[in-house]
Protein backbone atom coordinates (compact mmCIF):
# COMPACT_ATOMS: atom_id res chain seq x y z
CA UNK A 1 0.00 0.00 0.00
CA UNK A 2 1.38 3.45 -0.94
CA UNK A 3 1.94 6.29 1.49
CA UNK A 4 -1.16 8.47 1.90
CA UNK A 5 -0.13 12.06 1.22
CA UNK A 6 -2.81 14.57 2.24
CA UNK A 7 -1.01 17.80 1.35
CA UNK A 8 1.40 18.06 -1.56
CA UNK A 9 3.28 21.26 -2.44
CA UNK A 10 5.10 21.23 -5.77
CA UNK A 11 7.46 24.02 -6.83
CA UNK A 12 5.38 26.67 -5.03
CA UNK A 13 6.36 30.32 -5.44
CA UNK A 14 4.63 33.32 -3.94
CA UNK A 15 5.46 37.02 -4.17
CA UNK A 16 3.81 40.17 -2.86
CA UNK A 17 3.90 43.69 -4.16
CA UNK A 18 5.05 46.20 -1.57
CA UNK A 19 4.60 49.94 -1.27
CA UNK A 20 6.96 51.75 -3.58
CA UNK A 21 6.43 49.29 -6.41
CA UNK A 22 8.86 46.59 -5.30
CA UNK A 23 8.16 42.86 -5.15
CA UNK A 24 9.07 40.52 -2.26
CA UNK A 25 9.32 36.81 -2.97
CA UNK A 26 8.05 35.12 0.18
CA UNK A 27 8.18 31.48 -0.95
CA UNK A 28 10.71 30.03 -3.41
CA UNK A 29 10.48 26.60 -4.97
CA UNK A 30 8.75 25.07 -1.95
CA UNK A 31 8.32 21.30 -2.23
CA UNK A 32 6.81 19.28 0.62
CA UNK A 33 4.47 16.41 1.39
CA UNK A 34 2.42 15.84 4.54
CA UNK A 35 1.13 12.38 5.41
CA UNK A 36 -2.31 11.52 6.78
CA UNK A 37 -2.41 11.69 10.56
CA UNK A 38 1.01 13.24 11.11
CA UNK A 39 1.68 16.36 13.12
CA UNK A 40 4.26 18.68 11.61
CA UNK A 41 5.79 21.85 12.99
CA UNK A 42 6.99 24.64 10.73
CA UNK A 43 9.49 26.87 12.43
CA UNK A 44 11.01 30.08 11.22
CA UNK A 45 11.63 33.73 12.01
CA UNK A 46 9.01 36.46 11.48
CA UNK A 47 8.48 37.29 7.84
CA UNK A 48 9.94 33.99 6.64
CA UNK A 49 6.70 33.04 4.86
CA UNK A 50 5.22 30.60 7.41
CA UNK A 51 1.77 32.15 7.41
CA UNK A 52 1.79 32.55 3.63
CA UNK A 53 2.40 28.82 3.38
CA UNK A 54 -0.62 28.11 5.62
CA UNK A 55 -2.75 30.55 3.60
CA UNK A 56 -1.89 28.69 0.40
CA UNK A 57 -2.82 25.31 1.92
CA UNK A 58 -6.07 26.79 3.31
CA UNK A 59 -6.99 28.16 -0.12
CA UNK A 60 -7.00 31.73 1.16
CA UNK A 61 -4.27 32.65 -1.34
CA UNK A 62 -3.17 31.29 -4.68
CA UNK A 63 0.46 30.56 -5.60
CA UNK A 64 2.16 32.53 -8.39
CA UNK A 65 3.60 29.26 -9.64
CA UNK A 66 3.41 25.62 -8.65
CA UNK A 67 0.73 23.31 -7.31
CA UNK A 68 -1.01 22.92 -3.96
CA UNK A 69 -2.88 19.62 -3.67
CA UNK A 70 -5.03 19.04 -0.58
CA UNK A 71 -6.73 15.68 -0.03
CA UNK A 72 -6.65 15.04 -3.78
CA UNK A 73 -7.97 18.49 -4.78
CA UNK A 74 -5.64 20.64 -6.86
CA UNK A 75 -6.47 24.09 -5.43
CA UNK A 76 -5.31 25.82 -8.65
CA UNK A 77 -8.23 24.19 -10.47
CA UNK A 78 -10.90 25.46 -8.05
CA UNK A 79 -12.86 28.73 -8.21
CA UNK A 80 -13.88 30.84 -5.17
CA UNK A 81 -16.85 28.57 -4.39
CA UNK A 82 -14.68 25.45 -4.67
CA UNK A 83 -12.05 26.90 -2.34
CA UNK A 84 -14.78 27.89 0.13
CA UNK A 85 -16.08 24.32 0.17
CA UNK A 86 -12.55 23.08 0.80
CA UNK A 87 -12.26 25.46 3.79
CA UNK A 88 -15.62 24.29 5.10
CA UNK A 89 -15.02 20.55 4.84
CA UNK A 90 -11.41 19.53 4.10
CA UNK A 91 -9.13 22.12 5.72
CA UNK A 92 -9.67 23.93 9.01
CA UNK A 93 -7.66 26.96 9.91
CA UNK A 94 -7.05 28.29 13.42
CA UNK A 95 -5.67 31.84 13.28
CA UNK A 96 -3.47 33.28 15.98
CA UNK A 97 -6.36 35.35 17.39
CA UNK A 98 -8.58 32.19 17.40
CA UNK A 99 -11.12 33.68 14.91
CA UNK A 100 -14.05 33.42 17.33
CA UNK A 101 -17.09 35.69 17.66
CA UNK A 102 -17.18 37.15 21.18
CA UNK A 103 -20.92 37.88 21.32
CA UNK A 104 -21.80 34.23 20.62
CA UNK A 105 -21.61 31.33 23.06
CA UNK A 106 -19.17 28.41 22.84
CA UNK A 107 -21.88 26.20 21.32
CA UNK A 108 -22.85 28.84 18.75
CA UNK A 109 -19.23 29.36 17.70
CA UNK A 110 -18.56 25.66 17.32
CA UNK A 111 -21.82 25.24 15.41
CA UNK A 112 -20.96 27.79 12.67
CA UNK A 113 -19.26 25.51 10.09
CA UNK A 114 -22.12 23.00 10.38
CA UNK A 115 -24.72 25.76 9.97
CA UNK A 116 -22.95 26.94 6.86
CA UNK A 117 -23.01 23.43 5.43
CA UNK A 118 -26.74 23.10 6.13
CA UNK A 119 -26.41 20.20 8.61
CA UNK A 120 -29.78 19.47 10.33
CA UNK A 121 -30.22 20.67 13.93
CA UNK A 122 -30.38 17.20 15.59
CA UNK A 123 -27.19 16.12 13.89
CA UNK A 124 -25.52 19.42 14.83
CA UNK A 125 -26.46 19.04 18.50
CA UNK A 126 -25.03 15.52 18.69
CA UNK A 127 -21.77 16.53 17.02
CA UNK A 128 -21.35 19.61 19.22
CA UNK A 129 -21.87 17.58 22.42
CA UNK A 130 -19.36 15.00 21.23
CA UNK A 131 -16.68 17.49 20.29
CA UNK A 132 -17.09 19.66 23.42
CA UNK A 133 -16.84 16.56 25.57
CA UNK A 134 -13.70 15.47 23.67
CA UNK A 135 -12.09 18.89 24.12
CA UNK A 136 -13.22 19.08 27.77
CA UNK A 137 -15.46 22.11 27.46
CA UNK A 138 -18.88 20.54 27.99
CA UNK A 139 -19.40 22.64 31.14
CA UNK A 140 -18.78 25.86 29.17
CA UNK A 141 -21.25 25.09 26.39
CA UNK A 142 -23.43 28.15 26.97
CA UNK A 143 -20.71 30.52 28.16
CA UNK A 144 -19.99 33.63 26.09
CA UNK A 145 -16.62 33.38 24.37
CA UNK A 146 -15.70 36.88 25.58
CA UNK A 147 -15.65 35.56 29.17
CA UNK A 148 -13.28 32.65 28.53
CA UNK A 149 -9.54 32.50 29.27
CA UNK A 150 -7.01 32.37 26.41
CA UNK A 151 -6.52 28.62 26.91
CA UNK A 152 -10.28 28.01 26.78
CA UNK A 153 -10.64 30.18 23.67
CA UNK A 154 -7.90 28.16 21.99
CA UNK A 155 -9.78 24.95 22.80
CA UNK A 156 -13.05 26.42 21.42
CA UNK A 157 -11.18 27.32 18.22
CA UNK A 158 -9.87 23.74 18.04
CA UNK A 159 -13.39 22.37 18.62
CA UNK A 160 -14.76 24.54 15.81
CA UNK A 161 -11.94 23.43 13.53
CA UNK A 162 -12.62 19.76 14.32
CA UNK A 163 -16.41 19.78 14.09
CA UNK A 164 -16.39 19.03 10.36
CA UNK A 165 -13.72 16.30 10.85
CA UNK A 166 -11.34 17.87 8.32
CA UNK A 167 -8.43 16.01 6.75
CA UNK A 168 -6.07 18.89 7.49
CA UNK A 169 -5.90 21.22 10.48
CA UNK A 170 -3.72 24.31 10.22
CA UNK A 171 -2.77 26.27 13.34
CA UNK A 172 -0.98 29.59 13.24
CA UNK A 173 1.09 30.19 16.38
CA UNK A 174 -1.42 28.29 18.57
CA UNK A 175 0.56 28.87 21.75
CA UNK A 176 1.61 32.47 21.18
CA UNK A 177 -0.90 33.86 23.71
CA UNK A 178 -0.47 31.09 26.29
CA UNK A 179 1.91 30.44 29.17
CA UNK A 180 4.13 27.35 28.88
CA UNK A 181 1.87 25.16 31.04
CA UNK A 182 -1.15 25.84 28.80
CA UNK A 183 1.02 25.62 25.68
CA UNK A 184 2.01 22.05 26.64
CA UNK A 185 -1.67 21.13 27.19
CA UNK A 186 -2.58 22.48 23.73
CA UNK A 187 0.36 20.68 22.09
CA UNK A 188 -0.66 17.41 23.76
CA UNK A 189 -4.24 17.96 22.62
CA UNK A 190 -3.03 18.36 19.02
CA UNK A 191 -1.09 15.08 19.31
CA UNK A 192 -4.21 13.34 20.64
CA UNK A 193 -6.31 14.75 17.79
CA UNK A 194 -3.85 13.59 15.12
CA UNK A 195 -3.94 10.07 16.64
CA UNK A 196 -7.71 9.84 17.23
CA UNK A 197 -9.01 11.55 14.08
CA UNK A 198 -6.13 10.72 11.70
CA UNK A 199 -6.04 14.43 10.96
CA UNK A 200 -2.90 15.92 9.45
CA UNK A 201 -1.93 18.85 11.66
CA UNK A 202 0.43 21.57 10.47
CA UNK A 203 1.51 24.01 13.15
CA UNK A 204 3.40 27.20 12.50
CA UNK A 205 5.41 28.38 15.47
CA UNK A 206 8.31 30.57 16.41
CA UNK A 207 8.76 28.63 19.69
CA UNK A 208 11.33 25.84 19.13
CA UNK A 209 10.23 24.06 22.35
CA UNK A 210 6.92 23.18 20.68
CA UNK A 211 8.74 21.18 18.01
CA UNK A 212 9.40 18.40 20.56
CA UNK A 213 5.71 17.50 20.33
CA UNK A 214 5.77 17.07 16.54
CA UNK A 215 6.29 13.95 14.45
CA UNK A 216 8.68 16.01 12.34
CA UNK A 217 9.70 19.60 11.95
CA UNK A 218 10.45 21.83 9.01
CA UNK A 219 12.31 25.08 8.92
CA UNK A 220 11.32 27.94 6.66
CA UNK A 221 14.12 30.40 6.10
CA UNK A 222 14.11 33.02 3.35
CA UNK A 223 11.19 31.31 1.67
CA UNK A 224 12.86 27.90 1.44
CA UNK A 225 11.55 24.86 3.33
CA UNK A 226 13.99 22.36 4.89
CA UNK A 227 13.52 19.27 7.06
CA UNK A 228 15.18 19.85 10.46
CA UNK A 229 14.33 16.61 12.24
CA UNK A 230 14.04 13.07 10.90
CA UNK A 231 10.49 11.78 10.67
CA UNK A 232 9.29 9.55 13.52
CA UNK A 233 6.70 7.83 11.32
Amino acid at each position, binding site marked *: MGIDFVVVLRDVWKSYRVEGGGVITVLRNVNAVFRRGEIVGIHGPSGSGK*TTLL*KLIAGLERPDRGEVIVDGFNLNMLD*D*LGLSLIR*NTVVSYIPQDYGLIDVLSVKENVELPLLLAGVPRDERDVKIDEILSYIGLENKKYAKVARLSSGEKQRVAIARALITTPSVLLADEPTANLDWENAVKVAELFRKISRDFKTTIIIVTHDPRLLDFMDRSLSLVSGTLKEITPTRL
Partner: protein
Amino acid sequence: MYISLTSIICIELKCLIRSRVTYLLLLFTTLLTFLIILSYGKVRLTFILASLIPITSSTITIGYTTIKQMFHTLILIGTPRRYLRISLIIISLMYSIPYSLPYIAVSISSVVYALLIVMVTYNLTLNLFLRGVRREIERMI
Protein backbone atom coordinates in the same frame (compact mmCIF):
# COMPACT_ATOMS: atom_id res chain seq x y z
CA MET B 1 -21.38 19.46 -0.32
CA TYR B 2 -22.94 22.90 -0.44
CA ILE B 3 -22.86 26.23 1.34
CA SER B 4 -26.19 27.60 2.54
CA LEU B 5 -26.86 31.29 1.82
CA THR B 6 -29.76 31.23 4.30
CA SER B 7 -27.39 30.06 7.02
CA ILE B 8 -24.96 32.89 6.25
CA ILE B 9 -27.79 35.41 6.66
CA CYS B 10 -28.94 33.72 9.90
CA ILE B 11 -25.40 33.84 11.33
CA GLU B 12 -25.03 37.51 10.40
CA LEU B 13 -28.41 38.40 11.88
CA LYS B 14 -27.61 36.52 15.08
CA CYS B 15 -24.34 38.46 15.47
CA LEU B 16 -25.97 41.80 14.69
CA ILE B 17 -28.88 41.18 17.06
CA ARG B 18 -26.42 40.38 19.87
CA SER B 19 -24.51 43.61 19.32
CA ARG B 20 -25.61 46.85 20.91
CA VAL B 21 -26.08 48.50 17.50
CA THR B 22 -29.43 46.81 17.11
CA TYR B 23 -30.70 48.15 20.41
CA LEU B 24 -29.55 51.64 19.49
CA LEU B 25 -31.32 51.34 16.17
CA LEU B 26 -34.55 50.26 17.86
CA LEU B 27 -34.29 53.15 20.33
CA PHE B 28 -33.66 55.59 17.52
CA THR B 29 -36.54 54.18 15.45
CA THR B 30 -38.92 54.55 18.38
CA LEU B 31 -37.87 58.16 18.95
CA LEU B 32 -38.24 58.87 15.24
CA THR B 33 -41.74 57.39 15.22
CA PHE B 34 -42.77 59.72 18.06
CA LEU B 35 -41.26 62.75 16.34
CA ILE B 36 -43.00 61.99 13.07
CA ILE B 37 -46.32 61.42 14.76
CA LEU B 38 -45.95 64.57 16.91
CA SER B 39 -45.12 66.71 13.88
CA TYR B 40 -48.18 65.36 12.02
CA GLY B 41 -46.04 64.29 9.09
CA LYS B 42 -44.54 67.74 8.43
CA VAL B 43 -41.00 66.35 8.46
CA ARG B 44 -39.76 64.52 5.42
CA LEU B 45 -36.35 64.23 3.81
CA THR B 46 -34.51 66.27 6.45
CA PHE B 47 -35.21 63.64 9.10
CA ILE B 48 -34.27 60.81 6.80
CA LEU B 49 -30.93 62.43 5.99
CA ALA B 50 -30.28 63.51 9.57
CA SER B 51 -30.91 59.97 10.77
CA LEU B 52 -28.07 58.58 8.66
CA ILE B 53 -25.50 60.12 10.99
CA PRO B 54 -26.43 58.11 14.11
CA ILE B 55 -27.00 54.95 12.08
CA THR B 56 -23.60 55.06 10.45
CA SER B 57 -21.68 56.26 13.50
CA SER B 58 -23.30 53.71 15.82
CA THR B 59 -22.48 50.92 13.39
CA ILE B 60 -18.89 52.05 13.02
CA THR B 61 -18.10 52.74 16.66
CA ILE B 62 -20.00 50.07 18.55
CA GLY B 63 -20.55 47.28 16.05
CA TYR B 64 -17.14 47.28 14.42
CA THR B 65 -15.54 44.56 16.58
CA THR B 66 -18.50 42.23 16.25
CA ILE B 67 -18.89 42.85 12.53
CA LYS B 68 -15.15 42.38 11.97
CA GLN B 69 -15.13 39.11 13.93
CA MET B 70 -18.24 37.98 12.06
CA PHE B 71 -16.73 38.54 8.59
CA HIS B 72 -13.35 37.14 9.68
CA THR B 73 -14.96 33.93 10.96
CA LEU B 74 -17.30 33.55 8.00
CA ILE B 75 -14.40 33.77 5.54
CA LEU B 76 -12.32 31.27 7.53
CA ILE B 77 -15.05 28.65 7.81
CA GLY B 78 -15.73 28.75 4.08
CA THR B 79 -18.12 31.49 3.00
CA PRO B 80 -17.74 32.35 -0.70
CA ARG B 81 -17.20 36.06 -1.47
CA ARG B 82 -20.24 36.14 -3.76
CA TYR B 83 -22.50 34.82 -0.98
CA LEU B 84 -21.10 37.40 1.43
CA ARG B 85 -22.00 40.21 -0.97
CA ILE B 86 -25.54 38.86 -1.55
CA SER B 87 -26.08 38.38 2.17
CA LEU B 88 -24.99 41.98 2.82
CA ILE B 89 -27.66 43.30 0.47
CA ILE B 90 -30.33 41.16 2.14
CA ILE B 91 -29.14 42.13 5.65
CA SER B 92 -29.17 45.84 4.78
CA LEU B 93 -32.70 45.48 3.41
CA MET B 94 -33.85 43.78 6.61
CA TYR B 95 -32.10 46.44 8.68
CA SER B 96 -33.81 49.21 6.69
CA ILE B 97 -37.39 47.94 6.96
CA PRO B 98 -38.04 48.62 10.68
CA TYR B 99 -36.30 51.95 10.34
CA SER B 100 -38.42 53.05 7.36
CA LEU B 101 -41.81 51.98 8.65
CA PRO B 102 -42.40 55.04 10.90
CA TYR B 103 -42.44 57.17 7.73
CA ILE B 104 -45.82 55.69 6.91
CA ALA B 105 -47.08 58.62 9.05
CA VAL B 106 -45.72 60.98 6.37
CA SER B 107 -46.43 59.20 3.10
CA ILE B 108 -45.77 55.98 1.23
CA SER B 109 -43.13 57.68 -0.89
CA SER B 110 -41.27 58.73 2.28
CA VAL B 111 -41.16 55.07 3.35
CA VAL B 112 -39.60 54.18 0.00
CA TYR B 113 -37.07 57.05 0.23
CA ALA B 114 -36.10 56.06 3.76
CA LEU B 115 -35.82 52.40 2.78
CA LEU B 116 -33.56 53.18 -0.17
CA ILE B 117 -31.37 55.71 1.63
CA VAL B 118 -30.81 53.58 4.74
CA MET B 119 -30.31 50.42 2.71
CA VAL B 120 -27.68 51.99 0.48
CA THR B 121 -25.89 53.64 3.42
CA TYR B 122 -25.87 50.50 5.55
CA ASN B 123 -24.80 48.36 2.63
CA LEU B 124 -21.93 50.72 1.81
CA THR B 125 -20.87 50.76 5.48
CA LEU B 126 -20.90 46.96 5.73
CA ASN B 127 -19.07 46.64 2.42
CA LEU B 128 -16.45 49.03 3.72
CA PHE B 129 -16.06 46.85 6.84
CA LEU B 130 -15.82 43.72 4.68
CA ARG B 131 -13.02 45.25 2.59
CA GLY B 132 -11.21 46.34 5.75
CA VAL B 133 -11.55 42.85 7.22
CA ARG B 134 -10.26 41.20 4.03
CA ARG B 135 -7.23 43.48 4.09
CA GLU B 136 -6.66 42.70 7.78
CA ILE B 137 -7.02 38.98 7.13
CA GLU B 138 -4.47 39.18 4.33
CA ARG B 139 -2.04 40.72 6.80
CA MET B 140 -2.95 38.65 9.85
CA ILE B 141 -3.40 35.09 8.63
